[in-house]
């Protein structure tokens, strides 16, 4: 993974408390007005447009306090710098979890994953981060802390800034504290994989599964190259004799066993080439590899596309014709794709992506860049084609950070004009 090499990160500030961070940001706004780059576990520095101005990286590394964990209420309030691994471990002791798949969990922080709206395969059955953040505290660019939501699971007082900050890439405020709604850890999680002759056969299968007697919590589709990479990483085996559909089930052992049985019966009618149930002992490793897929690749460029679920298999067909290896959260119409090694410059990459972007635009979607060499980002629109609501987002940004101090130039907003700034 390439880190931004810019002077922007030459200087760093790691506050010990939220109050210290607020003071620092207030001083900055009142005096030097340097650009501030919020960082957590540094797992997503490649995400978004590269920083083009020097500034200060403000780190949440020391903001790791657990403020309150009333386990019987199934909520937890923590500071944003807590590592996802540490959070998971804390919750596991009470047999609870935040059911979001997070890559690099040993490094990623809660604040960071919220800023990037991270997530993976479980989103089909369990939703995304936005569904679990019930309270948030952030510090705006002037150093003023503000909060929204609260510590109860149901609350409609005030505007839902939890949603606004989730996925805002640190451009509206530095997230310092979060309250999450939690779920119990299920007794069992199992994966079943079926390979097919074509993506079209998988689409027909997905249509039938809409009325399956079972309730999968994840529906993944992989092309054979992604499947072998993920299987190797997880030290498990997956069929690679054709496009692969994976279904995950969670719940009581008895319930999941029934679902595996039932869905095999349903799949049989669709004539899969092979059906494999991942052994229990290998299931955790497989989840990890599936989750890490978007970050671990050595390939030159990784993109994320969103589109109608019903068009996702056509999209995969189009992409794999160019040897792009793909992972789709098929129930949600989300595709992660890695361009093949033969792509060595931005022009070739842009050439491959153009028809794909055109395709997703027809089906209400867009295509954004997850990771690529920084220099390519001048030629490839990192955030995809402009959406009709972007001007309104600009107005929100202008209201909350009028000096454009937070993550300047890294999000959807137009690249800054360097003069008189920094």
């Amino acid at each position, binding site marked *: 993974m390439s880190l931004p090499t810019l002077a922007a990160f030459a200087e760093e500030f790691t506050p010990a408390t939220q109050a210290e961070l607020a003071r620092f940001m207030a001083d900055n706004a009142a005096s030097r007005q340097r650009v501030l780059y919020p960082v957590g576990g540094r797992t997503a520095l490649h995400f978004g447009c590269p920083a083009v101005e020097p500034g200060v990286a403000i780190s949440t590394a020391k903001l790791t306090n657990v403020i309150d964990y*009333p386990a019987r209420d199934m909520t937890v309030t923590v500071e944003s710098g807590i590592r996802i691994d540490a959070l998971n471990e804390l919750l596991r002791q009470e047999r609870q979890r935040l059911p979001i798949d997070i890559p690099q969990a040993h490094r990623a922080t809660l604040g960071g994953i919220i800023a990037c709206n991270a997530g993976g395969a479980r989103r089909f059955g369990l939703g995304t981060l936005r569904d679990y953040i019930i309270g948030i505290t952030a510090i705006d660019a002037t150093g003023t802390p503000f909060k929204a939501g609260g510590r109860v699971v*149901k609350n*409609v*007082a005030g505007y839902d800034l939890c949603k606004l900050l989730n996925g805002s890439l640190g451009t509206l405020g530095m997230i310092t504290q979060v309250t999450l709604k939690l779920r119990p850890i299920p007794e069992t999680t199992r994966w079943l994989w079926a390979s097919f002759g074509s993506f079209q056969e998988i689409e027909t299968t997905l249509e039938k599964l809409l009325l399956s007697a079972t309730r999968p919590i994840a529906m993944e589709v992989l092309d054979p190259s992604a499947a072998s990479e993920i299987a190797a990483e997880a030290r498990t085996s997956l069929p690679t004799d054709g496009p692969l559909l994976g279904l995950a089930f969670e*719940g009581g052992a008895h319930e999941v066993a029934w679902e595996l049985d039932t869905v095999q019966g349903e799949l049989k009618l669709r004539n899969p080439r092979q059906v494999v149930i991942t052994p229990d002992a290998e299931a955790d490793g497989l989840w990890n590899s599936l989750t890490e897929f978007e970050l671990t690749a050595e390939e030159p460029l990784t993109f994320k596309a969103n589109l109608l*679920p019903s068009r996702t298999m056509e999209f995969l067909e189009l992409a794999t014709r160019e040897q792009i290896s793909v992972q789709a959260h098929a129930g949600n119409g989300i595709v992660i794709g890695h361009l093949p090694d033969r792509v060595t410059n931005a022009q070739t990459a842009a050439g491959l992506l153009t028809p794909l972007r055109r395709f997703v635009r027809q089906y209400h979607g*867009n295509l954004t860049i997850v990771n690529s060499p920084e220099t390519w980002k001048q030629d490839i629109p990192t955030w995809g084609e402009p959406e009709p*609501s972007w001007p309104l987002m600009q107005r929100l940004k202008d*209201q909350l950070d009028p000096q454009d101090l937070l993550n300047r130039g890294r999000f959807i907003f137009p690249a800054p004009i360097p003069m008189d700034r920094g």
Partner: protein
Amino acid sequence: MSVSTPAAPTFGHDVLRRLREIVGAEGLLSQREELLVYECDGYTIEKQVPDVVVFPTTTEQIVQIVKLCNELQLPFIPRGAGTSLAGGSLPVGGGVMIALTRMKQILEVNLRDRFAIVEPGLVNVHLTQRLKGTGYHYAPDPSSQGACTIGGNVATNSGGPHTLKYGVTVNHILGVEAVMPDGSVVTFGGPAEDTPGFDMTGLFVGNEGTFGICTKAWVRLTRDPAAYRTMLGIFETVEDATRTISNIIGAGIVPAALEMMDSGIIEAVEAAFHFGFPLDAGAVVLIEVDGLEVAVDQEAQTIMEICHSSGAREVRQANTPKERLLLWKCRKQAFGAIGRLSPSYCTQDGVVPRTKLPEILRLIIESGKRHNLRIVNVFHAGDGNIHPIILFDERDADQVQRVLHASDEILDACIELGGSVTGEHGIGVEKISFMSKLFTAADLATFLKVRLAFNPTGLCSPKKMLPTAGACGTEQPIVRTGVRAAM
């Protein structure tokens, strides 16, 4: 009750003519007696007659109405079915009320991609009815779902009994088309997930009409559960019931619904529906689990064991789908049954951490005694979302005063216990004065900035949600406009 607010300023004939040109003569009400229907919503303590009500049938008509309002500097406010219990559709700012009840089409149902596109005036339950037999449903089911509209649900981020497992409205809205306060039309999100940029859909839901007017919503459809087990736990005391609820959640079980009714409500509901509720019980808890047939029995069994070990007198199970539906009818129409107990009632909507339910219920009982008021309770216990219903006669000014005091006391207690003053009804006009108790001045200033990005002139739904003026940002004294009217 007499309405002591000043008579609505007569709208110039010119304004009415221009509005009529947009919506037609049949799409406009301006006579005082016609407008009285719109003087309040489900929150009857405050009243204010709108100057004019228009009934657009298309987004384009709304655009023209909003542009006209901008040209003439007239405030405007959207209204769905008027079921808000917090004065969400009370036209406190005067001006043009835009009623969306004639925009009620289901524009598309797409089962493959699990969404539907609906107009804002569609009644919530009509979508459910339309989907019957498809294997899918629209999950948010407010108790008022037989009347309330999806546009109103989007504006207030409505909940309902099944939100415990399935989440509230915002968890089921994929996208929104809205007429902005300046008359432009913008779409946020849509049928594909993860539109790049901010989560504008998530921010828009729950805006209480202050960001613009929802004209179309893309809603997520949810797979029907394969099986249900619906139980009724019967308890000697409210304390036993709330302790049980706390124990169920504490054991890591998330039922589909967990609803409590106390003896006051049981009496009213039993008189109305003859379900066979035990009239001598202190409280009953309606518990529903759903899921696969192979799983629900085990889960129901565990819950019944917890009920018994927590002091339930008896646990009954609904044996047939008909019995289940009747049980739910009793629960959802409990508010209607209250008419048997009292001429008027005020439904409160507070939230506490679920383990604090026993405490807040105790405080509610004390508050009722202190103010000599009868308070009954029917609420979403699994979410910690209480709905104390204060019974009164609105013709008695002293009682109204006591109702307001008791309400304030209960909501203050919710805040003290770490909760909130509204779980699903919204701030509206009723709870504006609580915003500064829940939030700091900096929080409120941030909310205001967010509103200014959408609604810079403040003409759209003025004097709602935030205790500050919309446009210039100057502090306004906190006045509960219509409260005086009620006295």
